[in-house]
């Protein structure tokens, strides 16, 4: 219960501290709320928590997810068909918090559903529901003013991305604007499980680390297997897995649990 007050940026910092003390990166699964149904997505999140997730990236469905590959496109389409909306996502998170889920939760949403809700209203409501931060894939730091003020007011994270195409100048910009952590894209492309991660990934991560210092770096896009986790663990503070888990969930709770456990346990192993 002593965790219940430390929300937002403080909860996220505490999550990274714990993982760091254990000498491993934090495991942040992505899951789209409403897929394959509102109830089943809550179950999936409970399953991921039981498998040792350190925090969550909860997907808000959007009709035009231009940064997503086929797996998450299809899942969010189903979530929309099942009636998932921003208010329902927040209500679901409230339910999870009431059940005692304490891990940090970040909303992953495109700009437009948040704008439609009203930015200040959304951030206040999300904060009240137990959300700790926002990840907005179509919001580069140059466009973030509208969100940044309200996030700061509520002590919430606002996560920006870095891509292999980002110049050193942009790395500096994102490091300076970082609130919570930096979402580092492992590749140029959309979300989706990949067999291999790019060979020059550690060079890119090194380039980012030089400027990021102790700002946590969380790697995402493409990660699907324990081997991926082992290879990146020395370079990052956390990692995000989305499409691979969504696919596993389609095969049932057991396969979701099993994959999540394997990804989580890979964080302990030496490479």
């Amino acid at each position, binding site marked *: 219960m002593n965790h219940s007050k430390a929300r937002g940026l403080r909860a996220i910092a505490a999550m990274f501290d714990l993982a760091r003390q254990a000498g491993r990166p934090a495991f942040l699964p992505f899951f789209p709320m409403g897929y394959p149904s509102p109830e089943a997505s809550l179950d999936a999140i409970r399953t991921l928590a039981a498998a040792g997730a350190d925090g969550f990236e909860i997907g808000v*469905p*959007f*009709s*035009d*997810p*231009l*940064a997503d*590959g086929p797996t998450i*496109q299809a899942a969010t389409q189903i979530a*929309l068909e099942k009636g998932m*909306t*921003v*208010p329902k996502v927040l209500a679901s998170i409230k339910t999870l918090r009431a059940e005692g889920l304490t891990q940090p939760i970040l909303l992953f949403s*495109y*700009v*437009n*559903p*948040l*704008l*439609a*809700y009203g930015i200040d209203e959304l951030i206040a409501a999300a904060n009240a529901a137990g959300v700790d931060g926002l990840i907005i*894939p*179509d*919001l*580069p730091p*140059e*466009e973030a003013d509208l969100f940044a003020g309200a996030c700061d007011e509520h002590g919430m994270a606002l996560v*920006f*991305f*870095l*891509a*292999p*195409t*980002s*110049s050193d100048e*942009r790395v500096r910009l*994102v490091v300076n604007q970082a609130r919570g952590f930096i979402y580092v*894209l492992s590749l*140029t*492309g*959309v979300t989706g499980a990949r067999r291999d991660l790019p060979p020059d990934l550690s060079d890119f991560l090194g380039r980012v680390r030089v400027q990021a210092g102790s700002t946590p770096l969380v790697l995402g896009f493409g990660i699907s297997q324990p081997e991926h986790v082992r290879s990146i663990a020395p370079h990052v503070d956390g990692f995000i897995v989305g499409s691979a888990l969504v696919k596993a969930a389609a095969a049932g709770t057991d396969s979701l649990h099993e994959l999540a456990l394997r990804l989580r346990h890979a964080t302990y192993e030496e490479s």
Partner: protein
Amino acid sequence: MTTPDPTIRVASTDVPDERGYFGPFGGRFVPETLVPALDELEAAYRAAMADPTFQAELAHLQHSYTGRPTPVSYAKRLSEHLGGAQIYLKREDLAHTGAHKINNALGQALLAKRMGKQRVIAETGAGQHGVASATAAALLGLDCHVYMGSVDMARQRPNVFRMKLLGAEVIPVESGSKTLKDAINESIRDWVTNVRDTFYLLGSALGPHPYPMMVRDFQSVIGIEARQQILDQAGRLPDLCIACVGGGSNAIGLFHAFRADEGVALLGVEAGGRGIDSGEHAARFADPTISRPGVLQGTRSYVMQNEDGQILNTHSISAGLDYASVGPEHAYLRQTERAGYTIATDDDALAAFRLLSELEGIIPALETAHAVAEVIKQAPKLPKEAMILVNLSGRGDKDLDTVIEALGFD
């Protein structure tokens, strides 16, 4: 034709600002991966526009390949039939490939070449931008891949064949409503993946900065020519300029040169589909119940959406106007009341399609027919001394299947 007055270009370049904003509209809402690519594009574009060699090469191709300047035709029989204002047609249907889209496609393809990007991708709705892109790519020796919704592929079949003949790969898009919006999503996904060696040749005054500005500038040749031509032919400027508005490229291309001319009213025509009350339309400005400012595909503008910010499916008989958002500069022109916007329904457009064919011997594109439909409404209300200039954005050959079915021709 006399040389256009170059000061016109300069007169109205106060927007966008350096961040790509037209008042509160525009901007650059894209994944981080694309921001460096957009920076690179903007820098290359500004350098090209300041480079007399690039300008000369573009002007040469516009003249020797596209066939510019396109004429302004006085529509004598249509004017007499309507019994009011005198009607002039800016004949973009006579540009090579049959629509204004070639103006932008050639400009961007030249830029791609200059930037050393061999692989070009494009989206298309009506197929006119796809054909224009495939044409420019063939001319300049670039590899061209065009994303097109499968619904649009079915209703604009001739253009699918044209693109293939021109050596482009046409990639069907099966997601969402399978129309223009979904083709843009797929193009952005391709670009985000292949960003290092790919040029995204966007077809309308849409998307993230610098596209709305760049497309406007490449299309502004329409208005720059027309303004001078009508001065030469009629001795004065028109009272009213009319153009259809899908993403808004032909309209902004016509309007841009007239912006500082206070006596010239500017009127854009959106797709009213089956009527505003039906909810089945693409009238982003006309239906506040389902259209509000929002962010779609990289830019802030009016967006047709539900309460939860989900983008709505649109309907228009013309594939080129069937889109849930509209170029940010039009939102700005409307907000500042420099331009007005109205609608024409599917039925209005079909009637105009027939009338222009019968009275002037010009079969317009269905998109263009929306602009002509507004001329039919406006001209009778105006005195005989009044002058209307309408952008005849494209020819209608691509639409014969649709029209034959809708009108029950045999």
